[in-house]
């Protein structure tokens, strides 16, 4: 091998290494955007509905799969639950949800996740056959795109103040 051919080989190797490094930078920078672009607003709303339906069904497996282990669940009363506490309250019947419906949901994507927010109707089954307690909340759910799938990291509900009473004549 001549000195010249050795130099060309070495230069080629350097070029390949630098190209590979540069290419990996591009891939890592676009990874979040790629994850995001895989989901449409309609798909996020469908995912949200899956979580709501699984909560109504008290489907612990499904709810668990859709929640991050470090998820925070803030109820309309301000009470806070961990993922384990939320699932436990569903499976023990402490929390029985008969209606859980997001209306006019707004989706805001961010790199690696999305916020799904909007007015939500919730009905809680009351003990002793009493009529269900109806709640009208603004609920925001923060979803993260994880390697294993999309998971809830935060769900927070805030009661929407009712309209002021009609003025007395």
């Amino acid at each position, binding site marked *: 091998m001549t*000195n010249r051919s050795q130099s060309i080989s070495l230069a080629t190797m350097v070029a390949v290494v630098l190209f590979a*490094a540069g290419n990996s930078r591009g891939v890592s920078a676009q990874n979040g955007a790629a994850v995001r672009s895989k989901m449409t607003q309609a798909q996020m709303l469908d995912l949200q509905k899956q979580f709501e339906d699984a909560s109504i069904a008290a489907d612990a497996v499904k709810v668990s799969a859709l929640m991050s282990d470090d998820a925070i669940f803030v109820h309309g*009363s301000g*009470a806070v639950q961990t993922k384990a506490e939320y699932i436990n309250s569903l499976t023990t019947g402490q*929390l029985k949800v008969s209606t859980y419906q997001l209306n006019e949901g*707004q989706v805001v994507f961010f790199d690696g996740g999305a916020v799904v927010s909007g007015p939500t109707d919730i009905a*809680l089954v009351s003990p002793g056959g009493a009529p269900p307690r109806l709640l009208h909340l603004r609920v*925001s759910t923060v979803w993260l795109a994880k390697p294993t799938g999309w998971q809830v990291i935060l769900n927070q509900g*805030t009661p929407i103040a009712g309209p002021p009473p009609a003025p007395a004549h």
Partner: protein
Amino acid sequence: MTIRKNRFIATAIAGLIAAMPLLAGGTVSAGGQTSQSSTTQRDLVELQKKFQDLTVAGDSAGVSALMADEAIFIHGNGAAQSKAEFLTAMATGQLAFSMYQLKDPKVVIFDGGAIVSGLVDIAFKAAPGSQAPPRVLHMRGSSVWVQRPSGWRLILDQDTTLPAPTPPPAAAPAATPPATQ
């Protein structure tokens, strides 16, 4: 001489091959993980405090710089505002805080962002000439921060008003109330 040259080339190639994963991995770190892992829970609590202090000061420019353009702000009464609406409410005096404090903060850091949540006390400035005491709200607040190339930005702030503390029962304590939505 030839043997020495070949050994040099072999060493150079081996070095390049060894450096390849480092170069590739290094770009991942530089793209996100380094700056994120260097942001501590304390940094995020301070960032949250900065947002709250700027809001109390009515510093629209400072607040604007910390909010993502698509941010959602949900007040304790369930009213939702966009970033523009929140800033306008501040600028016009419609929303004037005299106190905005976070107590017992909890920080959850995730890839590309963080949640800062805890107990929030907010007081509104009394109207000029009013003798009424300031209205104070006790809430559970959560702020979601996302990491952008230009810095951390608030993308969601939601407060849930806590029920007023009940007076101590005269008789036996009631059963633990169930968690409610």
